[in-house]
């Protein structure tokens, strides 16, 4: 059974989370805070890194959308130069997981960062929320109440890590209506609660039950949507059809928290050819689509990042052609991850399989000739 601390709410869930954060800040548990804040125009959110505690008043620890994936924010802050402040970061579980992957890939430095995750009801698609944020806010209230529903992004409907104990400290908001629960998940998290004089020894059966109920529902969603996806994308012809609308903008790659390369192979002059090469290819096939090699890009990107793919959905949010790229990538990603027995973002110490060498591995895939 999960153990944690039960903190009574005074007001809304968001307020309860912020009250706890404020108290931790006052008691010097960290120096600055990374947290989502609504932008002045009111139709989106951004991450803010703040050291002035009064700025916390506008913060939204449970934003209805993910605009920039939080791991990208963590990487931007910690990748270059010594991090001399203790930073607390509040994010969705999939953002925390991506942050852990970037740490392993040496694109983020979590040494001075306390990662705080919150139970996640899912996020609305950017394309739904931004044009009409008023309706979006109403929709999200319903999502929070029903914990899911039809208006969240497809990958959120099938996400099983919405309440995972991740990072250093997890804030559970699903347990009961009158409290939030604090569940430490690392020495840093335990230390934070200890310095606040909070004991995390209470059993949380209510939360465990809720999580497993919702998980069961999501597992059913997942099974159904995977069957649907397989029928749509399996085989080269269907795959080509799926990506036939791709215009090669590479938004998916740039929104992806794992695709960290400053200059992608697929944007490099390695993918530049003589004019006659294109003409010859057109000659062989009768016609050559432009931009060409779009499927090569997607499969290449998939092979580069799928072991670390968390199914966060940012790629799909950024795709101007609404290609189900997150659904596809997380589906294939999870299959690859299972093969290696690797679960990205769960354990900071576990190495990414591509940096581990085993002499004997996957012999069943070897060519017997």
């Amino acid at each position, binding site marked *: 059974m999960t153990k944690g601390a039960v903190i009574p709410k005074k007001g809304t869930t968001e307020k309860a989370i912020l009250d706890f954060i404020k108290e931790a800040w006052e008691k010097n548990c960290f120096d*600055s805070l*990374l947290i989502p804040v609504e932008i*002045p*125009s009111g139709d*989106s959110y*951004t*991450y*803010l*890194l*703040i*050291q002035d505690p*009064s*700025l916390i008043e506008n913060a939204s620890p449970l934003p209805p959308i993910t*605009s*920039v994936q939080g791991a*990208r*924010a963590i990487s*931007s*802050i910690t990748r*270059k*130069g010594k*991090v*001399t*402040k203790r930073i607390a970061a509040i994010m969705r579980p999939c953002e925390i997981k991506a942050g852990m992957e970037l740490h392993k890939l040496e694109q983020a430095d979590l040494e001075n960062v306390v990662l705080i995750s919150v139970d996640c009801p899912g996020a609305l698609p*950017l*394309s739904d929320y*931004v*044009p009409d944020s008023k309706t979006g806010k109403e929709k999200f209230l319903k999502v929070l109440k029903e914990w899911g529903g039809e208006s969240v992004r497809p990958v959120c409907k099938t996400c099983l890590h919405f309440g995972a104990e991740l990072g250093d400290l997890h804030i559970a908001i699903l347990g009961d209506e009158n409290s939030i629960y604090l569940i430490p998940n690392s020495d840093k998290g335990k230390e934070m609660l200890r310095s606040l004089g909070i004991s995390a020894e209470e059993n949380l059966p209510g939360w465990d039950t809720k999580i497993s109920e919702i998980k069961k529902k999501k597992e059913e969603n997942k099974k159904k949507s995977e069957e649907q996806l397989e029928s749509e994308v399996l085989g080269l012809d269907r795959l080509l*059809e799926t990506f*036939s*609308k791709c*215009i*090669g*903008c*590479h*938004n998916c790659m*740039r929104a992806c928290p794992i695709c960290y390369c*400053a*200059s992608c192979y697929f*944007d*490099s*002059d390695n993918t*530049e050819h*003589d*004019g*006659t090469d*294109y*003409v010859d290819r*057109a000659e062989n096939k*009768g*016609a*050559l*689509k*432009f*931009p060409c090699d779009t499927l090569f890009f997607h499969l290449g990107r998939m092979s580069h990042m799928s072991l670390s793919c968390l199914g966060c959905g940012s790629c799909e*949010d*950024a795709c*101007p*052609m*609404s290609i189900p790229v997150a659904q596809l990538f997380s589906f294939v990603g999870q299959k690859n991850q299972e093969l290696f027995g690797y679960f990205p973002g769960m354990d900071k110490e576990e190495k990414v399989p591509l940096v581990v060498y085993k002499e004997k591995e996957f012999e069943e895939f070897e060519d017997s000739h």
Partner: protein
Amino acid sequence: MAKVLKINKGVEEGVKEVLKFLLENERVKGVFTLRKTGKNGAVTYALIKDPSEIDNCVPLYPLMPINAAKSLSTLTLREPLSESLALFVRPCELRAFVELVKLQQGSLENMLILSSTCGGVYPLKMAVTNNTDRNLEKYWTSLRAIETPSDIRPTCKGCEHFLPYNSDMTLVSIGKDIDKSCHVVLNTKKAEESLRGIEEEISDGELAAEDMESLRKRRISEREKLFSDLKTEDFGLDGLIDLHGKCIGCHGCSSVCPICYCRLCFFDSEVNEPGFSSYEGEMRKRGGIRVPPKTIFYHLGRLSHVGISCVGCGSCSDVCPVNIPLSTIFLKIGNAIQGTYGYLPGKDLDEKIPLQTFEEEELAKFEQ
């Protein structure tokens, strides 16, 4: 007086007949135009070698999946084409490619250029919801009435350069008889030569200047409305923040922009990466800082890099996942920059881009 080819077919079929004639009679070795493929009917550009593939082409389909200039640059970046190619592209795509050629990112050699009077294109979002086909009838009705179709991209509605510059052939796709007859104005000897032996009537003629002039006037007033609605004059920093605050930093606007040709953008380079000390400095000054930072710097920087060559094609707006009206901003500011230098991008291949020329005495009025 120019020569005009007349085909007794609607324009969509007529242009395909021309392209097929060129390819079958080996006047060109390939054709570059829009083609419809697959079960979901995705419309993309294609380089076509097999004449039977022309049947799948939709040269006048009102959609710009990408600005063709980008693909033409891919095709000719390393070397000019070694065999002749007929291309059918929209006027703004041609203008963008002319800019790229000036910027040494491509070559027009061995290209036979076909373009048309342009009725504009629908936003990509319409293709996503598969609604373009449903709107086609409405689109062509508007073009027959010499009107601007509703729901086309905002910058298309306000585009006055819908007559192509630098095309060898100009297809008349706006006018009352376009469903019955296809008129192609042959602007160059090269065009006339390429159609030698075609079994269709070629006679003296010109574009219906009056109709085009009246459409141009309406487009200009539409553009003025578009520009004044944007209200950049009263912006200040708050206005800029309101407009760009929702940017997610995907830089899709830069990657689809035909003018943004750099392989590695300054704004994606390590030079522009903040580092923790600059975060610390900003927090000290302002209490807090947006992460990732420098959103407006990126957009203004890109504007200063491409504004002089911006043709207002609208691709940037099309790919923005959060609907920032980028193409309107870029066209408005771009027009102002271009006006200052008296430069119209993509019109004259021999005129250098102002940034490539140096004049000792220039724009003195801006000096302090």
